Every structure is written in C-alpha cells, then in structure tokens.
C-alpha cells in the first residue's frame, strides 16, 4: 500500500507520504485533528486529493499525474467507520451481504460462514441494526466490509465510540483479521493502548504531516514517557 496525497481544506493542509505493510495491521496514529480521517477518506475515494498517488495491492486507485481517479465503488476497499454506518432499514444479514452481492462470484475470496464465525455474529443475523449494542454493530460493520473481499481494510477509529469493555471485546477480532485473511489493514486511532495490542507498523501523523513511521516499539516508548 502506497499513499502520497495532499489536500488543502481551508487553512489546513494534509500532505502525507507513507507505505503500509502489504499484510497485517498498519496503524495511523496521531492526535485528533492531525488529518487521519481525511487521509482515510482520500484512500477510500470519498474525498479527492489535490494531488498525489494511491496504490493498493499493486492497483493504482488515484494518480493525479495520469488523471486516474477511481470512484469509491470501484476501489474495493473495505471501510469501517467510527459510527458504524449500518443500513438501518436492512437486517444484519442484508447488511452483511449488501456489498458481497455486488462482487462477481469468482472474485469472492472470503466465505461468509468464516467471517460470521470469526466475528461471532451468527445469532444476530435476523436482527435489525437498531437493537444491537455498539460492539455488535461494529462487528457487523467489519464483517460487511470483509465480505466484499477487499484489497485492504480501512478502519477509521472503529472503537472510539465504545466503552473500554467493548473495546477489549473487539480488539482480538481485529488482530485476527490481519492474520487470517492475509490482508493489509490500515487502522486509524488516537489510542496507544489499542495500537500496542494490534500492530506491527505505525505511521505517526501530526498537523497533516507524517512525523515518523516504523516499528511500534521504539516509536511508542518516547511517546509513552511523555504521556
């Protein structure tokens, strides 16, 4: 995963350049307002960079130099948002299959049974998203994104709206996704605890720029001593 994008939003300039691991979790870490969500939006195709390049799994999704800008529906990136964004008018089952049905059967690499078992959501399938707990909602959102057999999974603070107990409940699932499906996961968070339990690589954002990146251990130690 190769990301080099810049975009001006009013006074704020996001200008980042980093490479994510080709499988396993890469964390995008930084204080709120560092531009993490806008980077995710630009990778997903929901916001358009002024200039730059986005390559995921060897596929060019955006390249301002060559005038390439795939719409979000053509990017095949599984997105999990902070607020879940499940379809309120559909059952959990229909939510899960919404994206999968739009993928040609030959391109479906990830079997639904495996995802449903991994996330432990079998008993929720016939429920409506309205009566799920926050943690259950996010598990369904993760499943929905996985079932499009994405080239990568983009997770924008998926645990931020949950209480600590729910966070503990979800982190193991996310850790297993990177391993079980050998898929790059870009995980946005402003929480060091989450990151330490998840990742191999951290990209540290501040004021719209990459400050440092690399293995979490040397990176997190000085940060921890500061906090």
């Amino acid at each position, binding site marked *: 995963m190769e990301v080099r994008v810049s975009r001006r939003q009013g006074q704020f300039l996001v200008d980042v350049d980093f490479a994510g691991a080709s499988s396993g979790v890469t964390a995008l870490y930084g204080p709120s307002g560092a531009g993490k969500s806008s980077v995710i939006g630009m990778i997903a195709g*929901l916001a358009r960079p002024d200039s730059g390049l986005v390559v995921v799994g060897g596929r060019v999704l955006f390249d301002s130099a060559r005038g390439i800008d795939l719409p*979000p*529906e053509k990017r095949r990136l599984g*997105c999990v948002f902070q607020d879940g964004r499940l379809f309120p*008018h559909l059952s959990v089952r229909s939510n899960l299959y919404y994206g999968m049905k739009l*993928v040609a059967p030959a391109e479906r690499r990830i079997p639904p049974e495996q995802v449903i078992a991994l996330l432990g959501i079998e008993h929720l399938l016939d429920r409506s998203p*309205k009566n799920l707990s926050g943690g259950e909602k996010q598990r369904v959102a993760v499943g*929905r994104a996985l079932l499009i057999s994405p080239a990568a999974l983009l997770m924008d603070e998926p645990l931020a709206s949950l209480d600590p107990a729910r966070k503990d409940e979800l982190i193991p699932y996310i850790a297993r996704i990177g391993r079980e499906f050998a898929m790059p996961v870009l995980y946005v968070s402003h929480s060091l605890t989450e990151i330490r339990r998840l990742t191999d690589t951290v990209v540290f954002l501040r004021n719209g720029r990459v400050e440092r990146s690399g293995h979490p251990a040397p990176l997190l130690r000085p940060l921890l001593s500061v906090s």
Partner: protein
Amino acid sequence: MEWLRLTPVEWDAMRLSLRVAVWAVLLSLPAGIGAAWVLSRLDFPGRRLLDGFIHLPLVLPPVVTGYLLLLTFGRNGWIGGFLYTHFEFTLAFKWTGAVLASAVMAFPLMVRAIRLSMDNVDRGVEAAARTLGAGPLRVFFTVTMPLALPGVITGSVLAFARSLGEFGATIMFVSNIPGRTQTLPLALYTLTQVPGGESGAMRLCVIAVVIAMAALVSSELLSRRHTAVLNA
C-alpha cells in the same frame, strides 16, 4: 337518510376528483422525487432559482397559475399549440388538463416533504454504500429512497389533498364542464349558485371531509408501519 343519496352530477364530480387527484400524484411523483434529490444533494449555480421556480405555484394566486397554464398549454400556447398541430392532442377543457393543473399546484408541497426527509438521510451511510461497491444510482434506490420513504408518503398525501381541493387553476385552465372537468370543488361551488342546491353542496362537503380523513389516516398507518420496520 334520503338526503345522503348522490345525484348523477355529484357522483361524476366525486369520481372525477378522485381520478384527477390520483393521476396528479402518480404523474408528479417521479419528477417530485427527482427535484427533491437535486435540491437536497446537488450544489450548483442556479439552485436557488430552481428552488424558487418549483415553489412558485405555492405563492402565486392559483388563478394566475391556471392562466399561465392556459397560455402555455392552451391550443394557441407554445407547448399546447405544438402538441395540437403535431399530435392533435390537447389538454385544454379536458380532464387531463385538470390533472396537469392539480399536479402543478401540488408539486411544491410534494417536493418540500420529500426533500426534508432526504436531507435527514445520513450521508455517511450513503458513502458507506459507495465503498461497498454500489454506484450512485444503486445507492439512490437501495439506501436513499427506502430511508426517505416516510417523506415520500407524506408528500404524496399532501399532494393528493391539495389536488382534491384544487379550484382556481382548474377552473381557469379547463373550465367547469359537468362530467368532463367539473371536479368536486367546482361542483360544490356550482351547486351553491343555483336555488335548491344546498343539500347537494352539503353532500359534497361530507364526501370531501371523508376522503381527506381517509387519506390522512392511511398515510399515518403507512408511515407508522414503515417506522415499525425501521425500528424492528
């Protein structure tokens, strides 16, 4: 209960009114949904102008709207003339003309209701659908429309009720011909102008109240059912 028995003219007026109102709603629904979506989702120069134009029948005296319809869709109007010379088709003094007058008058009410509910549809959920592989058209039909359905129901009922009550634009555009263009309000007005018409007017009054109440109750039931589905 003898006085409740409708005369043929009153029956005609009631049936015509229902037919006109149903067609006016059905025909303006696609355009109303389209206009509501454009106003809710697109930002372009001239958006306010379009908004104002759509709302014009709401603020203009209905007779003025009817007169403008006559000028454009009458046999000598620029659209009406074209239709008549090329297809021998005309709306003037026909029940179909009453449909057009009702549809135009009810359009702003319909668009307002639908737009309001589209404004309330979470754009984030639409964006999520895009990332799952749905193109803009699919997002519209599988996410935006189902979530905006209560507004579509409300808008349709408002438009239906407005069509049922249409008077000024209709009488101006298609006149007041019993059996052809004489809708319920026109028939009621006519009855009050002749001696001995009071009981007929009263009957039409009762019918109008019954139809309006039925429309209101059924829309309430429909949207309650929809909300129940959403919250199930």
